[in-house]
């Protein structure tokens, strides 16, 4: 060890080490790399097992794989290789043109499920009429009394409530008992008759003879088409596009009675799926065709669709059997059963969708509102500022409170406190909503913080009030970030199990919930219930299929969030 005598080594800060050791550095680098890969590889391998158990790929004929390799994978792979090499944005176009219809179809399926289980088209039509009426009242008030701003606030707040809900019959019976002496401290009990029925109640009997799909064309497709049409108009320089979009959408959906039976769908589902999947895709295609860049990307979804169809025809013709997968259409559409072959996940799937709706409707506005206050209004100095920073720390801490404690909170607050039933959709949504509230707040705060101050100052400089600045400048800029964060929070919400156990969500239900006050089961809850079955077909087959379904929904949610984020990060 000649180096040891060299004075420059000994005087270095690292004199304890003996010289330069190349091997040690190399080994250390590899160890750190292995550590990075450890968790990833382990989970990937385990999930590969899950996938194998769920789909059973080895039960398929070799010919089946060969056919699909030739019709789907070879052309898709060739196209992908081409996109990777070409500098044109064809790859992005391919991703969007494939992803948009897929996400649209899944969203459309979720909406269609709502129309099957929760509300009839007539209910929805009544709701839309009520909202339109409320909007008309507000606009009329604005025209007639333009200066009465405070009065308008009242109108804006009350008109939708009165038209949508009316003044329903109320029955309140709350008793507060002391925990120590078990005597009642306070009892509130009263009941009022229904004073004003909702607009929907008037509209429903009138429109009930009209077929459901036609009601949806007017109340779902038309508003959506107007919305998308306005997007097209804003994008185009010549200001055209609104009538074309609306006309196209109406033609597409009124074709339902003729076209739907051809693909084996009910007319109603055709309308919903066309609105959710075809409309956004068409609007996207319009832009790609107008810009004429990355046109070759459009080939990818076409090649995929044609390849899958050709593969289906060919495997059928040759008689090749596909894998005997646990995860198939009947798994997605049937309730659980004591025989593994018949077991499905439909009711919990609907339960999860309804739960997410509750969260989106009740919790997200509060979360985004809190983020706006903390970032835009809250003082950051003085005693009040210290209080605000405490609130911010509190939000961070709430994000770390175990989910099981939130379940306990939901149980105590909504079941024992308000007196809602155990295990209903509303309680589940509210409980899991409280759990994701801090996540929504934190991500929204980050998105709002990322809006450059110069924009706010410019808006202030033009004389905008603070609220006008927020509404017209800050929120539109922060919207993609907020959207990304909230979708990720939804992903967290859909996988939560412990809170559902605490609020008594059913292990498995035969029927899907028909409303927000019905008992429900959610996907993770059903998975947990299956895990205690001893039949190996359940443990390895049905359970794996359930896990893959849950992960697929999660992947779709997170993938959408990541695509939104990347799209808007590039733009900045």
């Amino acid at each position, binding site marked *: 060890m000649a180096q040891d005598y060299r004075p420059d080594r000994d005087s*270095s800060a690292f004199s304890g*080490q003996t010289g*330069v050791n190349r091997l040690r*550095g190399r080994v250390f*680098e590899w*160890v*750190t790399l292995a*550590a*990075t890969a*450890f*968790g*990833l590889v382990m989970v990937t391998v*385990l999930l590969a097992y899950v996938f194998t158990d769920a789909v059973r790929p080895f039960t398929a004929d070799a010919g089946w794989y060969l056919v699909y390799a030739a019709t789907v994978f070879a052309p898709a792979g060739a196209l992908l290789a081409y996109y990777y090499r070409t500098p044109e944005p064809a790859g992005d176009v391919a991703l969007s043109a494939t992803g948009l219809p897929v996400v649209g179809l899944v969203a459309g399926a979720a909406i269609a499920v709502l129309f099957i289980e929760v509300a009839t088209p007539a209910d929805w039509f009544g709701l839309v009429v009520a909202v339109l009426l409320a909007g008309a009242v507000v606009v009329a008030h604005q025209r007639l009394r333009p200066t009465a*701003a*405070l009065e308008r*606030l009242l109108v804006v707040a009350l008109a939708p409530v009165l038209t949508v809900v009316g003044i329903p019959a109320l029955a309140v019976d709350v008793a507060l008992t002391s*925990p*120590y002496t078990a005597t009642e401290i306070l009892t509130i009990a009263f009941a009022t008759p229904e004073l004003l029925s909702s607009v929907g109640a008037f509209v429903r009997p009138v429109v009930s003879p009209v077929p459901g799909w036609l009601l949806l064309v007017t109340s779902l497709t038309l508003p959506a088409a107007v919305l998308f049409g306005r997007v097209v108009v804003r994008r185009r320089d010549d200001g055209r596009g609104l009538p074309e979009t609306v006309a196209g959408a109406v033609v597409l959906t009124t074709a339902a009675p003729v076209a739907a039976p051809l693909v084996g769908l009910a007319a109603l589902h055709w309308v919903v799926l066309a609105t959710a999947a075809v409309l956004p895709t068409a609007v996207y295609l319009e832009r790609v065709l107008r810009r004429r860049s990355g046109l070759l990307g459009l080939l990818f979804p076409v090649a995929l669709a044609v390849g899958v169809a050709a593969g289906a025809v060919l495997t059928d013709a040759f008689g090749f059997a596909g894998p005997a997968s646990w995860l198939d259409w009947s798994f997605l559409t049937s309730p659980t059963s004591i025989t593994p072959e018949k077991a499905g996940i439909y009711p919990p799937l609907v339960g999860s969708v309804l739960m997410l709706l509750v969260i989106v409707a009740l919790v997200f506005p509060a979360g985004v*509102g*809190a983020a*706006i*206050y903390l970032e*835009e209004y809250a003082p950051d100095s003085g005693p009040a500022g210290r209080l605000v920073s405490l609130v911010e720390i*509190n939000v961070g*801490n*709430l994000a*770390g*409170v*175990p*989910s*099981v*404690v939130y*379940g*306990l*909170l939901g*149980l*105590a*607050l909504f079941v*024992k406190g308000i007196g809602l039933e155990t295990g209903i959709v509303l309680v589940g949504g509210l409980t899991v909503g*409280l759990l994701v*509230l*801090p996540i929504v*707040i934190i991500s929204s705060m980050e998105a709002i913080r990322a809006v450059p101050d110069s924009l706010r100052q410019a808006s202030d400089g033009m*004389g*905008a009030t603070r*609220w006008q600045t927020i509404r017209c400048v800050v929120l539109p800029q922060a919207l993609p970030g907020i959207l990304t964060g909230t979708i990720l929070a939804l992903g*967290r919400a859909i*996988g939560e*199990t*412990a809170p559902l*156990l*605490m609020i008594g969500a059913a292990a498995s239900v035969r029927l899907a919930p028909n409303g927000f006050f019905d008992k429900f089961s959610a996907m*993770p809850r059903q*998975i*947990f219930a299956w*895990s205690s079955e001893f039949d190996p077909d359940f443990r*390895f087959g049905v*359970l794996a299929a359930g896990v893959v379904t849950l992960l697929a929904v*999660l992947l779709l949610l*997170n993938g959408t969030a990541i695509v939104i984020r990347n799209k808007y990060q590039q733009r900045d």
Partner: protein
Amino acid sequence: MSNDSARLQLTGGARQRVRRERLYRYLLLACASATVVVTGSIIFTLAFDAVQFFGMVDPVDFFIGTEWITDRGQFGVLPLVSGTLLVTVVAGLVAIPVGVLAAIYLSEYASPRARAVLKPALELLAGIPTVVYGYLALIYLTPFLRSLGIDLGTFNVLSAAIMVGVMVIPMVSSLSEDAMSAVPDALREGGFALGATKFQVSVGVVVPAAISGVFASFVLALSRAVGETMIVVMAMGLRPRLFDLGSPLTSLQESGQTMTSAMVQAVTSDVGAASPTYKSMFALGLTLFAITFLLNYLSNWFAGRYREEYN
């Protein structure tokens, strides 16, 4: 507030506009206060029933009792605490070394491109639902460990704890990596100028400089492990067992129960809402909430220190 009204004067100074602004402000303030209300109601609702529980069960018996047999009215929390601690320690043994080494790789060695792929991929691990991890531990990991020759029960502490560890790896690696990336390059360059190798700089300069952030990530990960529910409910069984100092390894091979899974068991078993078993949930929940809140606060404090130093 004064500059608010000055700004409003420019647009005509309509009084109702001032009022409207104030109204929006209060509405949003109400949203922000909702978070405080949530914290408050967690503490209140838990304490409310926990007080009732301690009316039925002596707090001394609760905190130093060594038997948790709810049917016989024995509510000693120590076996549950020991189960929670055991899971947390083993999970920490998995997650802390792996997480820190991964953080060193990501911040010191990885190319920007590798980092752009690996960091979000690691964070995806934290996004997998815990019920899926529990299922992986029960159905795949336990049989795999058995095939390695480890004698394990169907429900055992070891595979549950390993899974909890894998789940919290991203918490350690992500936060530690943030702390290491925040270390100024001048420190690294100083190390190189003194003739140190990359290994020496990574281990001798960067890690010590980022140590408060690294500790913050440990504490956060441990807090997550303490509160983890589904993995332990599914893979660890439901038998409360005090840690056996004489043969520590058998404790890992057998089933056990944590505070969280005792809560789940209490709520899923058919006991009346007035029974001490049902109320014991709230006492456990309060203990758990206190522990995790404390750990999170500690983690924040550590993280605040490194942010103060370098940002």
